[in-house]
């Protein structure tokens, strides 16, 4: 059975193109032009993954996300945003989006993210530990490379897929400096048009999420003029 994806986007061209691309990959796609129509449809049945635009008539993406989260905490949600500020709002409101891409986004990048999110869900159903588990441990940090999840000590940190990929790139070689460009390539492997400011805001959010759990977290260090590095704290 193929997974059902819902695309809620008021721009018809984007809606059609995304639907076309995902259908080609074998997904079942439902498209909606505004949040309210989508929400009415979701009352009947919730899709397995959602791709949401933020600014939409009648009900915007943030409102829709909030409503969906009140029904399901696990259904993966990817936001398509056209402003950096919206980006911050999604995270600031702790809406629990699993990922977000900035317009204009790369279709291949979107497809890759959706695949990662479906894998996360699928592996989440399995036992937490198994022989094929791939874990990266650096001090208190533990990254599950198959599920794209992160833990700090015993606490799970809700990272988006992009944040996970950037953190993984840094933590893989602690002490080594990664330039913004390198991080862009790691964070957006299928997209070459990402601004380096985007990396800065991702780093900011990663820090915030860890500091929320541990005040003394200082793992992601800025190296002025170069980029960032992961510092392994004495554990």
């Amino acid at each position: 059975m193929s997974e059902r994806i819902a695309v809620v986007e008021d721009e018809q061209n984007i809606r059609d193109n995304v639907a076309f691309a995902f259908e080609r990959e074998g997904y079942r796609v439902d498209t909606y032009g505004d949040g309210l129509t989508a929400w009415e449809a979701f009352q009947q049945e919730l899709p397995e993954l959602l791709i949401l635009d933020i600014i939409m008539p009648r009900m915007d993406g943030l409102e829709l996300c909030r409503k969906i989260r009140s029904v399901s905490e696990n259904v993966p949600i990817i936001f398509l945003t056209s402003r950096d500020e919206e980006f911050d709002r999604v995270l600031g409101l702790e809406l629990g989006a699993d990922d977000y891409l900035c317009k204009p986004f790369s279709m291949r990048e979107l497809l890759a993210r959706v695949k990662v999110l479906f894998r996360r869900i699928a592996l989440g159903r399995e036992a937490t530990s198994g022989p094929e588990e791939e874990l990266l441990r650096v001090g208190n940090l533990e990254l599950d490379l198959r599920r794209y999840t992160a833990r700090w000590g015993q606490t799970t940190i809700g990272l988006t897929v992009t944040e996970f990929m950037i953190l993984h790139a840094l933590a893989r070689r602690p002490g080594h400096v990664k330039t913004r460009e390198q991080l862009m390539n790691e964070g957006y492997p299928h997209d070459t048009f990402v601004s380096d400011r985007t990396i800065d805001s991702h780093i900011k959010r990663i820090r915030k999420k860890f500091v929320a759990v541990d005040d003394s977290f200082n793992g992601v260090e800025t190296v002025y003029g170069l980029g960032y590095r992961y510092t392994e704290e004495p554990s």
Partner: protein
Amino acid sequence: MKLRYPSRISLRLLAFNVLLVFLPVGGVLFLDTYERHLLVAQERTMAQEGRLLAAAIEAYDRFDGDDAQRILVQLEQRHLARLRVVGLNGKVVADSALLGPRLENGETAVPAGETQAASEKSLLYRLGSLPFRLLRGTIRESGSEHDTDISSDLLSRPEVQSALDGRYGAATRISPAPRRSVTLHIAIPVRVEGAVEGIVLVSQSTGRILQALDAVRLDVFKVFLLSLGAAVVLSLIAATTIARPLARLRQRAGDILDRRGRLKGGFAASARRDEIGDLERALAELTRQLEQHLRSTEAFAADVSHEFKNPLASIRTATDMALEDVEPGERRRFLGMIQKDVARMERLLSEAREISRIDADLDDEERTVVALDELLSALVESFRLRNADCGIQFDLALADAHVGVEASADRLTQVFENLIDNAISFSPPSGRVTVTLRTAGDTSEVTVADEGPGIPDEHRDRVFGRFFSYRPDDDAGSGHTGLGLALVRAIVESYGGRIEAKPRGGGGTKMVVVLPLAGR
């Protein structure tokens, strides 16, 4: 803490006030003229007394010391000056000073000198009179001929010499310090049968006059000191009420721009009710509007960039798909989509440019009285021709003719073209677009009505906002940027008019444009 220098305005105020105080002081100089008049009057009086005495002596037809003495005694000291009668040998034959004090007080040199000395004791007087004493010293000394001539030999005195020659003689002498006083000496010849036989000497101290004048000077000086104090206090008050708030405003103005020259914060509105308060309020309003303008410009730039993201995303996804291994028909569809989105971005750019420049452009435009009825007739006719085959019907109802509006014809055309275009795009097939014109009072009212779906109440005010587009059943790439109605509103409002969206009875939307009539 920064060192506080007195502000330039404070210094200027102080200078002005102090200068004003000095003006009455200058008036003291006029007292010198007054003094001269008084001295002349005194001399005349003395000369008269002297002449009377001389005449009385001459009446005896001989010059005799006893006669003179008798006359002086008979006068009983009712004269004003000291009178002496001197013989040709220089001997004093009669002297009123030896007969006892004169009746009037304060006229002898001695008591006058005493009072003057008393007032001179005052530090204030000495301080104040210093410049005058210096001034007087130079003038007097040049004016007196032999001020050091104090020889007891009366005959050697210049006035006595003139009298001996048969003329009238007068001289002023200053008795030396410490008891400095000015005495006026007059010598009048006594003639007996044509020959000078003796001389009448009249002398009187000018002390009384000078003393009175000095008292006036002292008063003026006191007033001067008081005024000076008042001037300083007033200047300080003026400085605190004018210069200080101005300095604060300047400080605030400096703080408003940060190092990068960006506006941050503004002037606090002042509760002062004077001109400085007005200035503060004007500046507060200025910065508020500037900030608002900057904010709206920034918001507009953000809106434009946001509006670009959608067609860009559409183009990018379509490009991605067109590059995939898809059927030729699909590829054509994607390329067509890209083409439309490029056109849309182009239109967005030009409209954004136009709307951001509309205010400046409208100011430069030449406005004429445009006949609205003619403009609408022509416009509707051209729409009829252009949309002949789409089945939409155009109705024009002109309730009034010769409706003049002061505007640019091009801009008005743009307004109504936009509105009619909108109406057409919302109209169902073979719908009806109705344009009406009527006047009410000093305004004209144009309505453009369609039979479309209408605008939901919650969006009715927002349709004129920038980038707001409510097209529920819009097909992709129809090219509506959400700027059209914003542009219409900007134009209408710049002509002092207003625009409203109202529901049309029986479904649809009615756009009402109200413009002031020309010459009303």
